[in-house]
């Protein structure tokens, strides 16, 4: 009897059920999409913030002091210590390897540029552009094209794969202007011929330099495998008081908790352990500020999500209240036939639960699609909703539907059947 009441109610009142179901679906869609966006926004903005550059730098531990003015290092290029290029893949071997979005080794050398009779001394910076790094299991491409996103090239980027010893370089735009170089020119650096594939513009010291594949710089310096410093771009969690504690003073369990949080400090700590004879420093300009920006944006989206959830809950409640209010006569009839308050209420609650479940599943699917669409169109990357969220969302949908119906059901039940059946108030 009970099941039949519910079934017939759905069969006979398709329009009303459809309207209420549509409201629930819409509410759940908005809620799911916003929760998806809110949980992923930190990661997405973190990636956007990587435009500002690497947040960690690895230098040799026993390095002599840099004598750098205006981006030009006056320290003799062969002076001081070097890191080993062969250690680079270890960066992607640390616990937080998936948070490392890219790294670029740098090796500056001073060279003499010979072009059209002039012989100015310039800095040649050896680096990776977009280099395949051999890793166990995956193919990782890294270099300045992923860590230094503000570098712009008029022309094409040089090839820097290991197999062909590249003869292609970039020339900084101010240097190109001074020396009268343009794309496609042949230049001679340290008695070797190179082809200029593009003019580089960075707004920084590189505008006065030649930028070449790392192997070229190593060859000129005659130090195979040498790297002066490595810039690492990593996704980090904004640091807090716990992050600033010294890992050396921590006990086992605390140290584990500290290392298992992607603070800039703990990633730096792991990198220093992974690369022999290295010193890892966070670039404070980048890492300190991104925490603040990230916290603000996450907080904003979090508050907006709460607003969205409230609006969705309100829409669902309003639709349910309206749907039940329209069925006072039915309640009157049931009561006139001798149904108790509990029996009447349970019929309505069963209907509400059914509606909430159907609407919730449909809304969850639509919301996942919507979140994906938002991710695709704004961030060019996917926002995926964890399936784990489904029971949570369904639970919320049922509770909200219940809450929305409760007041209306009570009012309908308390009404005298005579008035309800007569159709007045």
């Amino acid at each position, binding site marked *: 009897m009970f099941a039949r009441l519910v079934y017939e109610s759905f069969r006979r009142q398709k329009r009303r059920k459809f309207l209420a179901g549509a*409201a629930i679906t*819409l509410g759940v869609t908005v809620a799911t999409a916003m929760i998806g966006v809110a949980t992923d*926004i930190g990661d997405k903005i973190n990636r956007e913030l990587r435009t500002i550059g690497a947040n960690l730098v690895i230098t040799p531990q026993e390095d002599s002091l840099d004598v750098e003015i205006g981006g030009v290092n006056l320290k003799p290029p062969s002076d001081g210590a070097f890191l080993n290029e062969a250690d680079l893949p270890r960066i992607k071997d640390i616990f937080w390897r998936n948070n490392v979005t890219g790294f670029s080794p740098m090796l500056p050398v001073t060279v003499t540029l010979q072009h059209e009779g002039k012989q100015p001394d310039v800095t040649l910076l050896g680096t990776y552009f977009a280099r395949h790094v051999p890793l166990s299991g995956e193919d990782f491409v890294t270099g300045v094209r992923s860590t230094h996103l503000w570098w712009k090239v008029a022309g094409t980027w040089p090839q820097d794969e290991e197999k062909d010893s590249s003869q292609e370089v970039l020339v900084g735009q101010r240097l190109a202007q001074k020396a009268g170089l343009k794309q496609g020119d042949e230049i001679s650096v340290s008695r070797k011929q190179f082809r200029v594939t593009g003019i580089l513009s960075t*707004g920084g010291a590189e505008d006065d330099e030649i930028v070449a594949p790392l192997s070229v710089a190593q060859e000129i310096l005659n130090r195979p495998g040498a790297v002066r410093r490595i810039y690492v771009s990593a996704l980090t969690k904004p640091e807090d008081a716990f992050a600033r504690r010294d890992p050396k003073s921590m006990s086992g369990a605390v140290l584990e908790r500290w290392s298992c949080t992607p603070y800039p400090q703990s990633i730096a700590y792991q990198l220093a352990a992974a690369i022999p004879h290295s010193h890892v420093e*966070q670039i404070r300009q980048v890492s300190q500020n991104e925490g603040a920006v990230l916290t603000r944006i996450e907080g904003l989206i979090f508050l*907006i999500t709460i607003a969205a959830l*409230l609006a969705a809950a309100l829409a669902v409640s309003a639709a349910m209240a309206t749907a039940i209010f329209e069925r006072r006569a039915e309640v009157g009839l049931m009561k006139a036939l001798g149904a108790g308050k509990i029996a009447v209420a349970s019929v309505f609650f069963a209907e509400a639960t059914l509606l909430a479940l159907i609407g919730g599943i449909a809304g969850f699917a639509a919301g996942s699609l919507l979140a994906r669409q*938002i991710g695709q169109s704004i961030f060019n990357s996917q926002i995926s909703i964890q399936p784990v969220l489904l029971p949570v969302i369904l639970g919320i949908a049922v509770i909200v539907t219940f809450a929305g119906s409760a007041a209306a059901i009570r009012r309908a039940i308390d009404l005298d059947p005579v008035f309800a059946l007569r159709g007045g108030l």
Partner: protein
Amino acid sequence: MFWRMLWRAAILRRGRAASALLAMVVAAAVTTALLNLYVDVQAKLQHEFRNYGANIVLVAKDGASLPSDTISRVDSLLAGRGIAAPFGMIVARTSSGQPIVVAGTDFNRVRQLDKWWSVSNWPSAPQQALIGLRAQSTVGPANQAFDLKFQGRILRLSPAGTVQTGAAEDSRIYISLADFVAWTNVQPSTVEVAANGNPNEVAGILNELTRAIPAADVRPVRQIMEGEARVLGKTRATLLAASVLIILTAALCVLSTLMGWVYDRRRDFATMKALGASTRLLNGFFAAEAAALGAVGALIGFVIGIGIAAWIGRVNFHAAVTPRFDVLPVVLAGSITVTLLSAILPISRLRRVQPAVILRGE
């Protein structure tokens, strides 16, 4: 008669009218708050991004020095639209003959410009130096005075504290500009400027600086400006998408509540029609009722929404969100449109039905 009908309708059906009004108020409040935040979030985040330091750098052309009045000219040109700090740099030698970069600057300005510098103690007296963390071991034992030599002239400095940034600053020694100029006779060669405002305003300041100081190469710090533009753009786009979703939900909520309300009153409608009210009068009556509800709801919602926006500004950005009163007409017009729409839809359906059928209760 018309006004009395409107008034009595609101009084007699308090419960239903109140729930419709509540839906309207919530929708208007959420819309107001979101529009306010959307307009304001750019300014708020730009403020955060100024902590990244300079977005414009002035460098003397061809390695020369800038004229000594450069910083005062930059200041008067900025006129509160940002902050500038001068830097002069030379290579000096320590007593053991090691080369080291010594920079002269204005510590008060640097403190405001480069907030990420982690400084143990800022120098406050002349002849005090701020020592980069990596340079520390080069200049000698900690907390002891040391000598630096530049072109035969010796300067005796006492360390005030250390600076750590993770970048080139770590291997330098910073002294006050007055000490620097007196010792080396070299004027600053670089001025770093953190200009406030949106990209157009910053580009404007960049152009003004280029014209005003011909001795300098004026360059934008591209990585900061581009990163800022990207993050701001994406955040605003996300906020816009969220706002559209929420406003749409709120509008539909109002629509369904109001439609239910009007549909519920089909008996009133039928009675009026049976008593001889013209269709125009009936339409006018329900439309006026809806518009009044929309206007009242929008006004109350606007006030609440401004409050919500201000609260979010305080909690999240630790700064006030200025109320935007230009949002009010938009919210008002939107509310009235939605309420009118939700009144007209059921009416147009009821109009075709005979009053007798409705009154009979079918």
